[in-house]
């Protein structure tokens, strides 16, 4: 049985007239992992996996072959009993396996894995890229098994969405929200990070760059293993704020940045729920910000009650408090976790804005934004991000954020900086 804990990191003291309370809530699960592929089987119908493979013309023979190997590696990780399906996508989407007489999904077994592997051999590169149609087909596949709570897809693409309007892609993504989770991977340098990130973010998944086709198999294997280890579905974060308070935002800040604010569903007038996707044994941090009407000095108020709930039942909770004080030594302190994640969120924003400006030819804006990113990464000791930034800009002075755009920066380096921007380093306590 899984156990969950929630801890809160905050400075609860507000100055006279202070209104805004910031807190980091860390939710940790233990015992949430299920059996891995090497041991045992899973209850048929408790989980479903769909693998979406790009077979557009740009993939070419070599790309499709590598994608096929990657799909096979993923299949090897799927625990027996798990329902699965393989979809090939170009301008439209087709189920590659199971065969049409078997339905949309079949339970994994030695036999079905073998059939699937053979079906993958027949994939050919051809046509355009309309990811909305792939996602729509995945949703329709999952809808055939409404009783399955844990639904996960892997999407692979190598190119820009075309052959459908951005609006129709957006509509397709919106129709899939809550229907399944989707981890997305882009291979090569011809896809758009913001486009694919939009899909992954909405569908509670990760986004990453696979530089070369040969690296796909290892990535798929790791992604599927991670999915298999997630034994808890149907979880959500619930945030209560008192009457008269305004919930400014709810963000996941670790392991990746994800603004959840707009994903609120109403539990009751004071409480909203935010989907968190499936969980394995892991820890995630959330940043909650609440604006309260100021109270008189000495008063105390519960600013937020943050609960982690499974199937609607709270299993862990953290209390975010506010105490008004005239003691400057208490009220001027910023909680280190709040400060660190606020800095990392700004870092992600300036990197993304800087790269977008660079792509749009606004070199002065890009220089300013990426300069600020260098400054932030340096100040917080984020060496990994500094290394990535160095591939895109020449750093003259990290302290002041003085940089020059690198003329020789490769597209892959920019994209890897972009995809890495939302990965945060966990604040230790």
């Amino acid at each position, binding site marked *: 049985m899984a156990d969950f804990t929630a801890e809160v990191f905050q400075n609860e003291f507000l100055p006279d007239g202070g209104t805004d309370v910031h807190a980091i809530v860390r939710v940790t699960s233990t015992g949430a992992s299920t059996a891995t592929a090497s041991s045992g089987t899973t209850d048929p119908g408790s989980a479903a996996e769909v693998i979406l493979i790009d077979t557009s013309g740009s993939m070419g023979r070599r790309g499709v072959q590598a994608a096929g190997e990657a799909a096979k590696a993923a299949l090897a990780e799927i625990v027996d009993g798990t329902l699965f399906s393989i979809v090939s996508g170009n301008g439209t989407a087709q189920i590659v396996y199971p065969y049409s007489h078997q339905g949309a999904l079949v339970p994994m077994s030695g036999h079905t894995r073998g059939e699937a592997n053979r079906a993958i051999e027949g994939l050919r590169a051809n046509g355009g890229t309309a990811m909305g149609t792939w996602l729509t087909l995945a949703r329709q596949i999952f809808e055939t098994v409404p009783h399955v709570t844990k639904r996960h897809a892997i999407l692979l693409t190598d190119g820009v969405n075309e052959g459908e309007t951005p609006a129709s892609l957006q509509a397709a993504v919106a129709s899939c929200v809550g229907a399944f989770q989707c981890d997305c991977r882009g291979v090569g340098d011809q896809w758009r990070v913001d486009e694919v990130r939009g899909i992954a973010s909405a569908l509670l998944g990760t986004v990453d760059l696979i530089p070369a086709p040969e690296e796909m198999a290892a990535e798929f294997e790791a992604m599927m293993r991670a999915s298999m280890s997630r034994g808890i579905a149907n979880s959500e974060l619930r945030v209560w704020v008192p*009457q008269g308070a305004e919930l400014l935002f709810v963000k996941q800040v670790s392991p990746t940045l994800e603004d959840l604010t707009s994903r609120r569903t109403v539990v009751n007038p004071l409480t909203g729920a935010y989907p968190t996707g499936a969980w394995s044994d892991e820890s995630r941090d959330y940043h909650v910000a609440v604006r309260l009407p100021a109270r008189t000095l*000495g008063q105390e108020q*519960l600013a937020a*009650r943050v609960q982690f709930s499974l199937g609607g039942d709270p299993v862990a909770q953290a209390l975010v408090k506010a105490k008004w004080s005239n003691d400057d030594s208490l009220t001027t302190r910023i909680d280190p976790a709040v400060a660190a994640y606020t800095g990392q969120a700004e870092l992600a924003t300036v990197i993304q804005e800087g790269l977008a400006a660079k792509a749009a030819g606004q070199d002065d804006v890009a220089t300013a934004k990426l300069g600020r990113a260098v400054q932030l990464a340096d100040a917080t000791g984020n060496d990994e991000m500094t290394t990535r930034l160095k591939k895109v800009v020449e750093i003259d002075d990290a302290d002041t954020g003085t940089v020059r755009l690198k003329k020789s920066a490769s597209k892959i380096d920019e994209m890897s900086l972009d995809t890495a921007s939302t990965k945060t380093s966990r604040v230790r306590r």
Partner: protein
Amino acid sequence: MLASATPQTAPAGEESPLDVGWTGAVPSAAVAPVDDELTCHACGQGRIVDGYCDHCGTPPPNPRDHLVESPTSWVGGVCDIGRRHARNEDAMSLSAAEAPGSRAVLVVCDGVSMATDSHIASLAAAKAARAVLDQPFPKGAGTPDAWAAGAGRALTGAVARANEAVAAAVVEDVPNPPSCTFVAAVVEDDVIVAGNVGDSRVYWLPDAADEPARQLGRDDSFAQEQMAAGVPRQEAETGPHAHSITRWLGRDAPDDLTPHLTTLTATPGWLMVCSDGLWNYCSEAEALRTLLHDAAGRLEEPTPTAVAQALVDFANEQGGRDNITVALARLAGRGSSTTSEATASAAPVEGDPTDG
């Protein structure tokens, strides 16, 4: 939570923080009555869950924030957090016999706010001192002087016990050990003995207009030192270091803790023991007498507790910048007002010539 509080059984000074805060169910004048202890006092709509209202987020009132004691019809007091402090570091402990004027003990201690856990220390001190002063004074030879000497020794002993209680209130080696002031008044057969260390005060506020109202004893404060040097009271008590005290109880207390002692035979009037949370807003004894008479006049039943609450309300209306404690004894007196400076034989008593 009210349910978790238990009657105090630990010896004075060894109470847990939960213990020392507990004074029984505390009725609060500022709050509407509610059906049960789980209904929110602040909004009346929510329920208390995990220590906070599930509608407005307000915690239930901390019993330590507002203490009321009414041991008999002629003695009562109120100890209140005020409006600006996060904690009530004032403390009060009262006792009295049924017969008016027969015997009463009123102790007030004001915890120093910059020190650790002064709210625990001050209450431990007040209770420890009261336990000493609850013992009847030795009659000695039966003369007023002998009584005064015995009373003086008892007060000096009470200060010593209170000082031990403050030192024992927290574990050793805290960087900023708790400390507090001390003031006590004992009534025995309409004779008053008062003693203080620090700037909490005893006032004698007689009914008769021709008898002067006055402070018994004097402050151990920077302001007092300035006044002794000729600075006017108003200026001294509002100066930059007006609230710095020169003597206090605690682990870092000065060696000489002999209280300023005064004895006085009561006429009809009010005996008041209070913290600076009140006198900050009304320091002159004559002004305080007028304030008290006005407050009592507005009350249908001017019991000591009701008058004390009215004076606490006054201080809160003025801003409530500090914790406020007012303890009162209503005395019918036994005739003439004769006073004498106490002389305790146990230790040389620092006299107060202006009170003599």
